[in-house]
Every structure is written in structure tokens, then in C-alpha cells.
């Protein structure tokens, strides 16, 4: 049996529509992802293997663990950020489930 959590508890208007303001902010954060993708090597190199939180084209926090990243974000309280992992300079391969 799977657990379940509902996005709609506070992220949606009672009509079921996603608030435009929320979408606008999410799209701004998507641009931060595009910025990371186009960032120069030296910027990215120092974050390899780390989870990073980006807002307004700045890496606000980084950590090798998600726990560490959340801890930093909880102190900063920056509002919505884009979270991703800058992968190590290796090729990605599969994970098997059993």
C-alpha cells in the first residue's frame, strides 16, 4: 500500500485551479535551472556531487546531502528555490529495484 500526500491542501485555490502567482514564481525558478545549465565550468565545478538551491541566478546553498541542504535553507528562508543535484563528472547508469 502506498502512502499519499495531497498537493491541494494549500497549493490550490478552492476551485481546483493553481494560483497564477504560484505558477509565475515556479517559472522564474525554472529560469534559474536554465542559468545553471549555461553556467561556466568554474561555477559548476565547485558544486559537483552536491545538491544545490538556486534563486535569482545565485546558488544560495549547497550540500552533499539533502539533509544538509534543507538545514541551510531553513536558516536562510529564501522563499521558493530550485533544487537540483549537480552530478559528479561521471556517466549515469541504472539502479535496479528488488
Amino acid at each position: 500500500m502506498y502512502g499519499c500526500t495531497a498537493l491541494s491542501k494549500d497549493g490550490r485555490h478552492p476551485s481546483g485551479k493553481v494560483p497564477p502567482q504560484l505558477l509565475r514564481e515556479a517559472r522564474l525558478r525554472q529560469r534559474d535551472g536554465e542559468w545553471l545549465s549555461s553556467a561556466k565550468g568554474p561555477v559548476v565545478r565547485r558544486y559537483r556531487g552536491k545538491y544545490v538551491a538556486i534563486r535569482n541566478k545565485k546558488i544560495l546553498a549547497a550540500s552533499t546531502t539533502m539533509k544538509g541542504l534543507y538545514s541551510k535553507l531553513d536558516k536562510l528562508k529564501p522563499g521558493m528555490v530550485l533544487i537540483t543535484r549537480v552530478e559528479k563528472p561521471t556517466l549515469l547508469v541504472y539502479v535496479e529495484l528488488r
Partner: protein
Amino acid sequence: MSSFAKKWMRQKTRTGTVYRPVIDLLFNEKIGRNLYSFIVDSGADISLAPRQLAERIGLDWDKGSKITLSGISPKPECTLEGRIHTVSALVPDLALELALPVCFASSDAPLLIGREGFFDEFDITLDKTRRRTVFSRKRVRRA
């Protein structure tokens, strides 16, 4: 709009630059919301994320379906425990809320979107030449 295109994420490897297909998903957390960039992994049976994300969005990790994760190495010490939960995530490009089964690994893991749940919702074109992914919402079949 029922489709959108997303540019691939550029990352350097020791063998050169690779471009990886990604998608951004918004999660409601216990406090606030954040956007997460996931790699689209058509070879993965199910989506993958670290345990801390499950806890951040208010799930009790232990209550999910128990599963063992392993990679290339056959060594038992190289396996990880995981729990599968169905979570709600928002695709901001379409303002679309999805119920998505995700395996939350006990330790830190990459953010991957696998086939289960996600590929049921979209026809996905991985366009390597143009380094972009086109996500087209599948039409709902009516009886």
C-alpha cells in the same frame, strides 16, 4: 496547451559534455513549496528521490512499500533501502497536478523521473539533436 518542450541540462563529465533531459516538479512542503529538477530516465521503472524529500513533504517514510535498490555492483553492502509512496507533484509548465509513485531511497540519491505514473500521462519525445524533450499530455480515453 497540452504539450511543452524542455531544454536539456548541460553537465560536464570526464568524457566531455553531456546533456540530460530534465523536468521541473513543484512540491508542497510542510512549510512552503520548492521546485525540483529531475532527470527524465526512461530506463527507470519508477521515480527516485532521497528520503529527506519524503519527510519534507510530510510523509512518514517507513509507511511506504519496502524495496531494495541496487546498482551495477552485486555486493549486498552496495544496496540501499527504499520506500515507495505516491505523492502529488505539480508540473508548472501545464499547471498540471500528478499523482506520482516515487521510490525514496534511505540515503542520498539522484532525482530521477521513471516511467511508472509519469510515462502514463505523457507521450515523451527525447530529441537528442535539438537537446530538448517534448512532453505531450496523453488524451483521456473515454468509454
